């Protein structure tokens, strides 16, 4: 029986090849899109899935309140470790202090390379679930050990055994390789831990670290924990919430809250808004999940519409089958099995499409997804998916077609009722509402990105490079290097900076100034710079002046950004002082010598943070900022700079970055989202148009005789075209009226999350609506004009 059904289904497919093509290609494209989205979501969800004990691992986070605004982050003070070990140890299997993941220069013989890694306490291998290939997994207990990833070992030693080799770190101290571990997977939070150095080695090597041992106010470290299986994250958080507040009188005013941020949330739910967890990537997952469902729905709608539109053709068959003994449920089963066959066919095609475009998709989404051939869950979900698609697309047509009365249809008096096209019209409106809303949404996202890209950044980011000077060997050589760089001809100006132009590495508080409001809890971005800061970056001084060699006192000067002046509520800032709260420290007061226009440093979507730019007297520099010589090509300049660098620091890797590229990276996540959204909304409109094309050709076919008669009576091609197109245009216009306010509502809410946001203008809506109408016209006109230009004698004869 089933075989018989499939045979009919197959012959029908061949006979009505245009409709079959529309149905199957629409479904296949929709399913392929949904499959790609599902694979993407699965990949995102499987971030950190290598970790078996994920449910017990957390990072200790801190929220503090400044002027009523809660700031949440991973940075914690050193004494927190001791407090947890002393009073809360029984909650934890591991308490592991860690530095930030930082880049260090690792040298072996004449190989100098930069890797990123952490200084961590000895439980790290267990918490990171490292798989050791060689060496001693407990070696973080030793002071002079370094554990390295397999790829690090390969880069430094090639095929030689790594264990026992001595590596020089930043040309400053030496460590012996004690273990080699397998690289952590790319899609994991610790993937950039390319080496681990014992935490104690960091403490031993640095006076500064020893000094802040009991300083609750210095939030410069990270702390990872693994909790005991007999407790929960929430329970531990409840216990440690006020540990800092209770122990530090000075910090209590900022209401420090210490809590566990579970590993399971690190990747997907890492957004904090005023102390509240507000999602993160998970929102994109939802968004694309919904888009995927919508696209499938569009494809199902095509299927439903084309099947019911063409029901007259199937009616006779239904009548015959009923007259020779078929029951209705057998017919329902027949039509469902036809749908099933089509869905399966489309699914196979969809897999083909996915395989074809997987590389491109990976590039677009910056993923490395492989097709899960051997994943049983995938195939089971695929099966469920096929069944759902069959029911979604096949059940209405099956119910509808099987309901025909055999006496009526066989008499040939069968006429589809006047209102039978109403459900179809509603579905077309639904389709276009969804597609147009997606298009508007995508346009708004693109607009917002472009708007933020066009934002004035306050400095000249083109032709500016930043050379990493992370180790101590650069100390005190600023003036020498400036002279040499300029003499090389590759550079016209140089300064040094403690943070790059695209990030803030440190913040400070605890200062006082004339007119500081009572109880004001200040918090500044704090950047150390050098001579020629203003000149090199191309900043705009709006008050006062830049650091100058002509004033010896400028070494204790400070330049503020405009936001800082407003923030401090300070009148006539130039010449005034910013003093440390504690007069007993021997920190000199900073004298305000200049005000610059705001520099966009962190997020291009947020407000610029108040910043203090001080003169670097402590060797806090991490970068040389170099203004390239505009007379040379970039590559010429780079060659000159590198050779100058190598002459002075032969054993240090020459690492640099372009300021404009770094700035561009800030848009990457959003651009990725935007390009994915573009692809999927384009697919949505394409699938909708496929359906419309099918319906248009159906209508043209159905009205062949009418068109013939009208033509004989003297109707022009234009009039006939209008006759056939106007219904569709009406439907699409209704869809536009539904989609626009809907998209407006959703997208204006989306824009709320950006402080610096594009005004949601009417232009986006006009473009989308105009585009939709044009696309509809093109789609529909093809059939309309074809029908209108057919010789009427021919079309009349077909009846």
């Amino acid at each position: 029986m089933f075989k018989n059904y499939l045979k009919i289904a197959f012959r029908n497919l061949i006979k009505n090849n245009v409709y079959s093509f529309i149905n199957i290609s629409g479904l296949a494209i929709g399913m392929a899109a949904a499959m790609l989205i599902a694979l993407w979501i699965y990949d995102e969800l499987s971030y950190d899935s290598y970790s078996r004990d994920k449910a017990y691992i957390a990072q200790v986070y801190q929220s503090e309140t400044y002027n009523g605004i809660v700031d949440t982050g991973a940075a914690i003070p050193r004494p927190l470790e001791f407090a947890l070990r002393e009073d809360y140890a029984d909650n934890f299997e591991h308490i592991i202090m860690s530095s930030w993941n930082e880049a260090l220069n690792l040298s072996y013989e004449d190989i100098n390379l930069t890797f990123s890694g952490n200084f961590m306490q000895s439980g790290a291998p267990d918490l990171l679930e490292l798989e050791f290939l060689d060496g001693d997994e407990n070696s973080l207990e030793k002071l002079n050990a370094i554990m390295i990833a397999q790829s690090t070992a390969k880069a430094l030693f090639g095929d030689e055994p790594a264990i026992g080799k001595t590596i020089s770190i930043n040309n400053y101290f030496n460590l012996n390789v004690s273990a080699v571990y397998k690289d952590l997977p790319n899609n994991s939070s610790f993937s950039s831990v390319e080496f681990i150095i014992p935490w104690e080695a960091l403490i031993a090597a640095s006076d500064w670290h020893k000094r802040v041992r009991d300083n609750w106010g210095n939030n410069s470290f990270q702390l990872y924990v693994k909790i005991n299986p007999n407790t929960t994250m929430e329970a531990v958080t409840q216990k440690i919430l006020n540990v800092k507040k209770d122990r530090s009188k000075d910090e209590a005013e900022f209401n420090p809250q210490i809590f566990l941020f579970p590993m399971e949330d690190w990747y997907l739910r890492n957004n904090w808004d005023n102390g509240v967890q507000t999602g993160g990537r998970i929102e994109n997952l939802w968004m694309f999940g919904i888009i995927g469902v919508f696209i499938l729905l569009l494809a199902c709608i095509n299927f439903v519409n084309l099947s019911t539109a063409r029901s007259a053709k199937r009616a006779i068959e239904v009548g015959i089958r009923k007259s020779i003994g078929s029951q209705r449920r057998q017919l329902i089963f027949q039509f469902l099995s036809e749908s099933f066959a089509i869905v399966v066919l489309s699914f196979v095609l969809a897999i083909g499409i996915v395989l074809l475009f997987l590389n491109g998709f990976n590039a677009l989404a910056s993923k490395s997804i492989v097709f899960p051939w051997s994943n049983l869950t995938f195939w089971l979900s695929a099966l469920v998916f096929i069944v759902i698609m069959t029911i979604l697309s096949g059940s209405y047509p099956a119910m509808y077609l099987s309901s025909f009365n055999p006496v009526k249809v066989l008499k040939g008096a069968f006429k589809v009722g006047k209102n039978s096209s109403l459900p179809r019209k509603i579905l077309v409106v639904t389709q276009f509402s969804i597609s147009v809303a997606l298009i508007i949404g995508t346009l708004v996202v693109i607009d917002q990105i472009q708007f933020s890209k066009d934002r004035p950044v306050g400095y000249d980011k083109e032709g500016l490079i930043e050379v990493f000077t992370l180790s101590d060997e650069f100390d005190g050589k600023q003036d020498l290097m400036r002279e040499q760089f300029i003499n090389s001809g590759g550079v016209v100006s140089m300064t040094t900076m403690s943070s790059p132009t695209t990030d803030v590495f440190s913040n400070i508080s605890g200062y006082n100034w004339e007119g500081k409001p009572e109880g004001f809890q200040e918090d500044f971005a704090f950047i150390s710079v050098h001579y020629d800061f203003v000149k090199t970056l191309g900043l705009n001084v709006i008050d006062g002046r830049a650091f100058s060699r002509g004033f010896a006192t400028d070494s204790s000067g400070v330049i503020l950004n405009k936001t800082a002046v407003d923030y401090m509520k300070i009148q006539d800032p130039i010449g005034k002082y910013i003093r440390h709260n504690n007069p007993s420290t021997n920190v000199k007061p900073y004298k305000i010598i200049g005000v610059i226009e705001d520099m966009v440093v962190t997020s291009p979507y947020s407000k610029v943070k108040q910043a203090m730019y001080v003169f670097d007297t402590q060797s806090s520099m991490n970068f040389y900022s170099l203004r390239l010589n505009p007379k040379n090509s970039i590559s010429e300049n780079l060659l000159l700079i590198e050779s100058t660098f190598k002459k002075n620091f032969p054993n240090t890797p020459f690492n640099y970055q372009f300021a404009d590229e770094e700035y561009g990276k800030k848009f990457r996540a959003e651009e990725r989202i935007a390009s994915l959204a573009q692809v999927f909304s384009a697919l949505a409109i394409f699938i909708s148009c496929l359906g419309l094309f099918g319906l248009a050709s159906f209508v043209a076919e159905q009205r062949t005789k009418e068109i013939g008669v009208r033509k004989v009576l003297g109707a022009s091609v234009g009039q006939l075209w209008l006759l056939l197109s106007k219904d569709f245009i009406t439907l699409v216009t209704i869809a536009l009226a539904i989609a626009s306010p809907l998209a407006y509502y959703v997208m204006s809410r989306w824009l709320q999350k950006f402080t610096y946001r594009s005004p949601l203008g009417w232009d986006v809506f006009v473009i989308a609506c105009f585009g939709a109408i044009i696309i509809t016209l093109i789609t529909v006109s093809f059939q309309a004009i074809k029908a209108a230009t057919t010789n009427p004698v021919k079309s009349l004869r077909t009846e």
Partner: protein
Amino acid sequence: MSILLSLNEATRSVNSGNNKVTLLNNINLQVKEGEFISLMGPSGSGKSTLLNCIGMLDNFNGGGYTFLGQPVHSMKEKKRSMLYKEYIGFVFQAYHLIDELTVFENIETPLLYKNVKSSERKALVADMLDRFNIVGKKDLFPEQLSGGQQQLVGIARALIGNPKLILADEPTGNLNSKQSTEIMELFSELNKEGVTIIQATHSEKNASYGSRIINLLDGEIVSE
């Protein structure tokens, strides 16, 4: 001979707008097994309606209808469908073969609905093809056949389930006279083999093949 079916004051009416239109009025009819009845009457007199109601594709909405002793008028849809699947075969003026199926498959389809096993189906269909001399056409599609050949297939399909009753609604209406004669000869032969036949026809000549002629006018039996 035993009675195959009997109609007792059977009525069929429809509501058209506010009017009640009576299509068949108080039909009394007994059909014995082995009869060959010709229904005659002008177009619109209700011949097709009567055939459809007897064939259970349509229902009377008044009076009684008994088929093989069972009251059809009070039967559930499913039971009725079982009954006609088992005992009734239809032949249509427009043949009504399924375009997407071959001759073989068209004839086979009723057996599928009766859940006959595949091997048995093959044998039965092969017999039927043989009997009607259309073995060579078994893999052709309806559009590749002449009208007479299509009607042969239609009759073969009606016969495949071995029905007691064949209902034929103007079976030769679309055929030329030579083809018509062949089809009517075939009906006589089937009738001789014991199949009860009721045919609707306009043609006196075709009607004369029957053993009994019933004249309809405006939904009523006017003469026998």
